[in-house]
């Protein structure tokens, strides 16, 4: 039983650091770059991804014995598309402004490689509990990375965070417009990956 607990914990925290989908596996780069101009859309995106990941992992894991190998990818994709449609309609109904500003990036969760990757690598081989924990860990890892990148970019681009001014900082800070543009996204993510590589090497040595 305790072994089981340890491995579940490992699965969860592995998703956040050791197997972080963005920083280690380089999956899901497109939304990573596109929605990180500010923290709020990044958080919305992260929560939507957690929901879709959880939904698809649960469905795939429960159906894993019925799946025929050659139709599995199709089945994964259709499950994910259904979950994304639910998330999209929910956002349109309850957060219309956020939905409009995220534009096509919510439907684009369908082609986010993290989700199909986890369905293939984890949910189609493991039981329900492991799949749920894996989805939560991976989703949390994705969301945290998304928010860190978004926070760096928002602070540097506007001098504010969560659209609120920061006391004693916003007054004299000169906004760095480039950070809010595509350039800032690419370069910040590049440097973040570099930093993660450096930390890994330092801790292993």
């Amino acid at each position, binding site marked *: 039983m305790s072994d089981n607990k340890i491995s579940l914990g490992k699965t969860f925290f592995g998703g956040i650091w050791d197997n972080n989908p963005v920083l280690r596996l*380089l*999956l899901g*780069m*497109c939304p990573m*770059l*596109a929605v990180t101009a500010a923290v709020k859309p990044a958080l919305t995106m992260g929560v939507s991804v957690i929901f879709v990941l959880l939904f698809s992992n649960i469905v795939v894991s429960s159906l894993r014995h019925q799946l025929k190998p050659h139709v599995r*990818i*199709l089945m994964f*994709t*259709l499950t994910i*598309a*259904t979950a*994304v*449609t639910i998330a*999209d*309609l929910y956002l349109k109904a309850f957060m219309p402004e956020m939905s409009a500003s995220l*534009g*096509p990036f919510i*439907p*684009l969760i*369908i*082609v*986010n*490689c993290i989700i*199909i990757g986890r369905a293939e690598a984890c949910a189609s081989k493991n039981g329900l509990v492991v799949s749920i924990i894996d989805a939560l860990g991976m989703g949390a890892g994705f969301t945290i990375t998304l928010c860190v990148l978004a926070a760096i970019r928002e602070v540097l681009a506007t001098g504010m965070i969560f659209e609120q001014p920061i006391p004693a900082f916003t007054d004299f800070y000169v906004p760095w417009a*480039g950070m809010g*543009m*595509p*350039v*800032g*996204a*690419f*370069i910040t*993510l*590049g*440097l973040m*990956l*570099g*930093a993660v*590589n*450096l930390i890994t*090497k330092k801790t292993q040595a």
Partner: protein
Amino acid sequence: MDTLQTLLLGFIGIVVVNNLVFTKFLGICPYLGVSGRIDMAFGMGCAVTFVVTLAGTLTWMIDHCFLMPYSLEVMRYLCFILVIAGAVQLVEMYVRKFFPALYESFGVFLPLITTNCAILGLCLFLNLWGIDSLLEAVVLSVGAGIGFTMAICIMAGIRENLELADVPECLQGAPITLITAGLLTLAFMGFAGMIR
């Protein structure tokens, strides 16, 4: 004359000004994954161009002929992804039959065109921009493919030269590629605001 102008502007717009890779961050995965060698990058670009043309046209037709008249918009994402998956399957069979060497070198990236956001992204943008003529939809789809090919080829050219450069150890591989992509984006920002 007016139509011709709209089409031409739309085409140039999507190839350079609103390039999907540089301004919309679509198709980043193959952009980083397959841009190691220029011939592979070009092959990938051609495959994507073909799929995006087919998928853009078909999804536009499905959207306007079936989904909108019967208000089945809820089914839109499901239909789109099925069309794209079918088109990719077609390309995969064609490449395996006629260019076996290219097929080997692509490996997993060929089926992954299905999950290339540039393709689904374009289909969604056609809907979002409210394109209402079939001809314009086709032109924009081809343009998006050509824009992607151009972006990935430029990147591959730079990366071939980057192999000889002295890059700090922790930045090797993906990080330096991302930073290069950032600088390329900066260059393409010079076109911003030219059209639309």
